[in-house]
C-alpha cells in the first residue's frame, strides 16, 4: 500500500440477505485511492456503488476482504471507533442532502465541529468559511425546508468540508439537482479538491459529474470492470 493511500481495498465481498436468498452486492473488489484524488464510481443502479461507499465510510461491514482507510483496518474497529473515524476524517454528501431539519443552515454546518468539541470561536470561523465557500453566507439562519435543492446540497457540502476531512464520500450528489445546480456543485467540489487536497470518491451515473472526474471506476454487478484516469471535460 502506498504511503499516501487514502483508501485501500482488497478482495472486498459483500452479501446481503434478501428474502430467502443472498444478494452479492460486491464480488471481490480491489481498489486503491490516493490522497487528493477526485474519483468516481460509475455504474447503473444496483451495481454496488453506494454499498462500497458505505463500507469505506464504516457505515456497513464487508462480508469478506479488507478495507483500510487512512491506514486503519476497518475490520478491527468497534462501532465507536468507526464513528470516531467518520467524525474526524470522513465527510459524507448524500443524494437527498440529509440536512437536520430543525437546525438552521449555520447549525447544520456547525454540527460536525460540535462533535469534535471545537470552541465557539473555532466553530464560528470554520462555519463562516465553509458557507462562504459554497456561497451561502447570507442564508445562515435559514431552515432546510426553505432552501432550494441546489442550496440544500451546498449546505451539505459545507457540512462535509467544514472539518476539513481527509476523504469526502459523495453518494449521487447531483441526482436531485438540475443541470445548472449540478455544474455549480461540481465546480465547488473541484475547487475544494484542488485547494485542500481532500480525496473525493463519488458514486454516480450522472454524466455531468463524470465530466469533472479525473479517475473513473466502472462498477457493474459488484465488479470493477474498468479503472481509468480521465481528463475532465467540463469547463
Amino acid at each position: 500500500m502506498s504511503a499516501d493511500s487514502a483508501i485501500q481495498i482488497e478482495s472486498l465481498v459483500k452479501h446481503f440477505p434478501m428474502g430467502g436468498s443472498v444478494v452479492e452486492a460486491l464480488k471481490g473488489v480491489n481498489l486503491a485511492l490516493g490522497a487528493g484524488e477526485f474519483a468516481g464510481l460509475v455504474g447503473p443502479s444496483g451495481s454496488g456503488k453506494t454499498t462500497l461507499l458505505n463500507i469505506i465510510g464504516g457505515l456497513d461491514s464487508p462480508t469478506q476482504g479488507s478495507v483500510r482507510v487512512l491506514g486503519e483496518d476497518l475490520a478491527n474497529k468497534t462501532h465507536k471507533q468507526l464513528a470516531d473515524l467518520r467524525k474526524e476524517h470522513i465527510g459524507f454528501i448524500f443524494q437527498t442532502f440529509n440536512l437536520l431539519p430543525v437546525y438552521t443552515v449555520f447549525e447544520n454546518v456547525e454540527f460536525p465541529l460540535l462533535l469534535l468539541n471545537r470552541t465557539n470561536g473555532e466553530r464560528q470561523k470554520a462555519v463562516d468559511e465553509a458557507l462562504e465557500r459554497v456561497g451561502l453566507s447570507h442564508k445562515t439562519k435559514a431552515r432546510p425546508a426553505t432552501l432550494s435543492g441546489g442550496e440544500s446540497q451546498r449546505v451539505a457540502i459545507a457540512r462535509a468540508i467544514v472539518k476539513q476531512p481527509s476523504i469526502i464520500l459523495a453518494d449521487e450528489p447531483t441526482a436531485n439537482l438540475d443541470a445548472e445546480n449540478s455544474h455549480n456543485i461540481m465546480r465547488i467540489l473541484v475547487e475544494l479538491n484542488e485547494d485542500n487536497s481532500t480525496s473525493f470518491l463519488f458514486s454516480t451515473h450522472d454524466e455531468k459529474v463524470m465530466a469533472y472526474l479525473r479517475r473513473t471506476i466502472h462498477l457493474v454487478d459488484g465488479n470493477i470492470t474498468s479503472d481509468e484516469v480521465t481528463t475532465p471535460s467540463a469547463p
Partner: protein
Amino acid sequence: MLIPKLAQRNLIGAGARTWLNVVTTSLALFMIVFASGMYDGMIAYTKRVTVATEIGGGQYWHPAYDPDDPFSIDDSHGLLPDELRQIVRRGEAMPILVVQGAAYPAGRVLPVMIRGIPPQQSIIDLPTQVLQAQPDGALPVLMGQGMARLSELEKGDRFVLRWRDVHGSYDARDAEVVGIMDVENFKVDLGQVWLPLELLRTMVDVPGHATYVVIGADEALTAASGEWVPRDHIFLLQDILNAVKADQPYVWTLYGLLLALAAMGIFNSQVLSIFRRRREIGTLMSLGMHRGRVVSLFTMEGALHSVYALLLTIIWGAPVLYLVATRGIPIPYDGADIGIVMGQRMWPVYSAGLLGGTVILVALIVTLVSYLPSRRIAKMNPTDALRGRAA
C-alpha cells in the same frame, strides 16, 4: 454538555410537537401537586382541628371507657388517680365527664351525649367560657352549630334535658342554650351537649369523677397514671389514619393516571419521533455520532420535556398553587355528612417532600419512557437508517 445542548436545540426546533408534550406534562405535574396538596391539606387540617378541639396533647381514659360502646359509658367514670389529679391541679390537663342523656327540643326527642367540661379550661379550643353563665332556673348548655341545626335550637332557646344519675334514677331539667360554637369537628358537635363539669357531677352525683382527662397540647403523656389508660395521638387519630390508609389506593391510582398521562404523551412522541427521524439518525451516525450518543440524545430530548414542563409549571402553576394555598377552596358540603372532620374551606399543603418527590418521580418516568423507545436506535443499521428503513 454536547448532548443536552443538541437535545435542547432539537426540542426547540421541533416546535409545536415539543410544546404539546410540555404542556401535557406540565398539566399532569400541576394536577399531581394540586391533588396531592389538597389531600395532604385535608388530612393535616383534620388532624389539626381534631387535636385542637378534641384530643389536645393526648388523653387518659378511665379503664372502662370505650366511646364506641354506649352500654358501658354510664359506668366509665371514676375518681382521678393522684398523678392525674396533680397535673389537673397544675392546669396542664382537664377532666371530662361523659353521661348519656336525651334532649327534648320542641317536643322531639334526641339522644345526646352530655359532656361536662371545666368552663375556664384552655386545653382545647372550645368556647366553654360561656358555660359560666347561670340562666335562671335552667342548666347552661353549649352546643355546636350542627347540633343546633339538628335540634332546631338557637341561643337562648330552652329545652328539656334528661339524664340518669349514678343511682339509676332518671332526672330532667330545663336547659338553656348559652352558646352555639362554630366548630368544624363534628365529633364534639353532633349529638353532643356541653355542660359545666361540676354541675354535671352534681347532677349525676359523682363528685370528683371523670370519664377521661385531656392534657395540654404541649404536655407529654406519662405512663404513671394509675390504672387510667394513656391514649396518644396515634391511637386517638386512628379513625383518620385508617381513612387515609383506606384512601391510599385511590390516591395512588389518581397519581398513577396523571403520571401515565404525562408518560404516554412523551412515549408516543418518542416512538413516533424515532420512526419519523430514522434518516436523521442515520445522518447523525454518518457524521460521526456513535449509537450510544444517539440513544443518549433521544433520551435526553424526552427527559428535557420534564425540565421544560417544570419551568412552565413554575411560571403558571406556582402562582395558582400559591393562590389556592393562601385563599383555600370553599367546600360545598359538610364534612360531617361523609364522616370527615373538615373546614368550610380546604387548605392545600405543599410539602417539600411532595414537591421534590413529584418532580423527581415525573422526571424519572419521563426519562424512562424516553429511553425505552430510544433503545431501538442501538439496533439500527446506519445504512438502513439513512435510507429511512426501520431497524
